[in-house]
C-alpha cells in the first residue's frame, strides 16, 4: 500500500542552494588578508609599473636631461642584443644544471640520512651548513682559499688525481660558479626529500618486503613515486631562487671572464651600474618578467600536483 507516493509528507523545494555568505561575513574574512596583500601589492607592483614606464623611456643616469619617450626602441635593442641572449642562455644553463644536480645529490643524501647510523644527527648538521653560509661569504671563500690556483685547497686535494694548479675561475668559470650554487642548495633539496622519505608509511615498506621486493625494487617502485611531489616542489622552489642568483657571479668572476658567467641578474646589474642605462635595464627587466611568467605557467601546468592545495575549501 503506497503511503509514500502522494508526497504529502514533504514537497522538495526547487532550487535550494547553499546559503551564500553575507557581505559582512565576506569582508570579515578578507580583513586579515588585506594588510599583507596591500603591502605586497604596493611594494612589488609599483616598482614594476615604474619599470614598465621607464622601459619606454630613454633615460641615462650620466646624461643630463632626464627621461624622454622613445617608444619600443629599448625593446628592439633587447631582442637584437646578443649580450642579452647570451645572458639568457647562461641563466638557463646555470639554473637548470644547478637544480638538477642539487636534486640528484639531494635524493642521494636524503637516502643516506634516512637510515640510522652512529652520529646521524651530526652528519645532518654538517650537510645543512652550506645552506646557512652567507652566499657572499661562500662566494669569496670559494674564490679565494678554495679555488685559487696558487694556494687553493681544491688544487691541493686534487693533486693525487693529477690536477696541477688549475686556475678554476678563469679556465672553468661557469663550472665553478655552478658548483658553488650546487654546494649551497643541495642541503635544501636534501631536507625536502628527507621529509618525503620519512613520511612514507612504514607498513607499506614492510608489505613490499613480504611481497618480495629487494631494496632497489622498493626504491624504484614505491619510494620514487611517493617522492615525486616532494621532488617537484624542490625543483620549483629551487628554480625560483637559483634563477635570481647574483652574489656568486658578482663576487667570484664578476660575470667573466668576458661574459662567460653573466646571467640575467648580473646583466641587469651591469646595465644599471655601468651603462647607467635605466631605460634599457627597465626593458630588459620587463622582458625577463614576461619570460619568467611564460616559463612559470608551463612549470605550473606540469607540476600541477604541487599546487593541489588541500583543506581550506570551506
Amino acid at each position, binding site marked *: 500500500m503506497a503511503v509514500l507516493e502522494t508526497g504529502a509528507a514533504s514537497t522538495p523545494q526547487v532550487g535550494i542552494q547553499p546559503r551564500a555568505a553575507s557581505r559582512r561575513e565576506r569582508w570579515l574574512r578578507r580583513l586579515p588578508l588585506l594588510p599583507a596583500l596591500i603591502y605586497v601589492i604596493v611594494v612589488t607592483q609599483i616598482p614594476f609599473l615604474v619599470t614598465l614606464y621607464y622601459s619606454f623611456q630613454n633615460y641615462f643616469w650620466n646624461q643630463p636631461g632626464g627621461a624622454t619617450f622613445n617608444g619600443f626602441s629599448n625593446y628592439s635593442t633587447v631582442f637584437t642584443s646578443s649580450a642579452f641572449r647570451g645572458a639568457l642562455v647562461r641563466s638557463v644553463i646555470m639554473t637548470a644544471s644547478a637544480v638538477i644536480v642539487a636534486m640528484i645529490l639531494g635524493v642521494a643524501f636524503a637516502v*643516506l640520512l634516512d637510515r640510522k*647510523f652512529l652520529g646521524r644527527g651530526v*652528519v645532518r648538521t654538517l650537510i645543512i651548513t652550506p645552506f646557512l653560509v652567507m652566499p657572499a661569504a661562500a662566494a669569496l*671563500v670559494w674564490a679565494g682559499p*678554495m679555488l685559487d690556483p696558487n694556494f687553493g685547497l681544491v688544487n691541493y686535494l686534487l693533486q693525487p688525481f693529477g690536477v696541477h694548479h688549475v686556475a678554476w675561475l678563469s679556465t672553468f668559470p661557469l663550472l665553478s660558479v655552478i658548483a658553488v650554487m650546487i654546494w649551497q642548495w643541495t642541503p635544501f633539496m636534501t631536507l625536502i626529500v628527507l621529509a618525503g622519505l620519512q613520511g612514507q608509511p612504514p607498513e607499506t615498506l614492510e608489505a613490499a618486503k613480504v611481497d618480495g621486493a629487494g631494496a632497489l625494487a622498493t626504491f624504484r617502485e614505491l619510494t620514487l613515486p611517493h617522492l615525486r*611531489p616532494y621532488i617537484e616542489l624542490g625543483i620549483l622552489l629551487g628554480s625560483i631562487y637559483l634563477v635570481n642568483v*647574483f652574489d656568486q657571479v658578482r663576487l667570484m668572476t664578476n660575470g667573466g671572464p668576458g661574459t662567460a658567467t653573466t646571467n640575467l641578474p648580473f646583466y641587469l646589474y651591469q646595465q644599471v651600474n655601468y651603462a647607467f642605462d635605466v631605460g634599457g635595464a627597465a626593458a630588459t627587466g620587463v622582458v625577463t*618578467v614576461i619570460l619568467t611568467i611564460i616559463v612559470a605557467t608551463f612549470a605550473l601546468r606540469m607540476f600541477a600536483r604541487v599546487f593541489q592545495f588541500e583543506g581550506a575549501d570551506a
Partner: protein
Amino acid sequence: MTAPAAPAPAAAPARVTTKPARRPRMRELSGQVGWGIVAWVVGIAFFLPVLWMVLTAFKPESAAETWPPQFVFRPTLAEFRLVFAGWGPFVTHSIIATVVSTLLVLLLGVPAAYALSVRPVKRWRDGLFFFISTKMLPIVAAIGPLYVIALKTHLLDTIWVLIILYTAMNLPLAIWMIRSFMLEVPGELLEAARLDGAGQIREISSVILPVISPGLVSTALICVIFAWNELFLALNLTVTNAATLPMFLISSVPQEGLYIAHLSAAATVASIPVILVGWIAQRSLVRGLSMGAIK
C-alpha cells in the same frame, strides 16, 4: 584435548633461555657501518669549505697564501680583531634590518595565512598564487626603477628601504609556510574554541598561535636567514648609512695586498650567527624547510 599450556599469568616472566643466533647480525651490522662511513665522508666533504674558512681565519696573512696550504700553523686573532674593529655599523644595520623585517613579516603574515587557511576567503587559491607569483618575478628586473623610487622618496641609503624590501621579499614564503602549519591545527580544537565563544582574534591568539608556535619559529628562522644573507639590494640601494654585513664582507677584499686571512675572518664572523642559529634550531629549521613547504 588441551595442549600443554604455559604457566599461569603470574607476574614473574620466564627467563629467555635459548641462545640468540649471531650469524646474520654480523651482516646487518657491517651494512650499517658501511652506510655510516659513506655518510660521514659525504658530511665531512660538504663541510670542508666551511672548516677551511674558519681555519684560515685564524692564520696570519703570511700563512694564508702558501703552497701547499697549511693545516698546522700558529693561530692568531689578529684578523678577527681587525674585523671586530670595523664591523660595528655594518652589523648593527644587519641586525636592525633582519629583526625588524622578520617581525613585520610575522605581523602581516599570520593574519594573511589565517585568511587563506582556517577561515579562507572565497578566492584563496588566487590569493596564494598572487603571493607566490611575486617571488617568481626577479627583483633584479626592477632594480633601476627601485633606485629611482628610493632616491625620490628619500629612502635611499636608509635602513628603511632594506626593511621594506626584505619584508616584501620574505612574505610570500612566510605566508605559504604559516598557512600550512595552520592547516595542521585539528579542526576540533577550533570548533571547541568557537563553541566557547572565541571570536576571530581570540581564536588566533589563544588557540592557533600556541599550537603553531614551533612553526612560527621555523618561519622566522628562514626569514632571518634570507634577510641576513641578502646582498643584491643592499649593494645597490645602500652606500654608507645603511650598509649591511655582506657589504662589509666585500670591502674586506682590497685592491692589492694580502687579504685571504682577513677575508676568511670577515666571512666567518658574518656567517657564524646564522650558522649557529641554524644548528641550534636545526629541528625547527628542518621542519620549516621540509614540512612547512610541502603542503
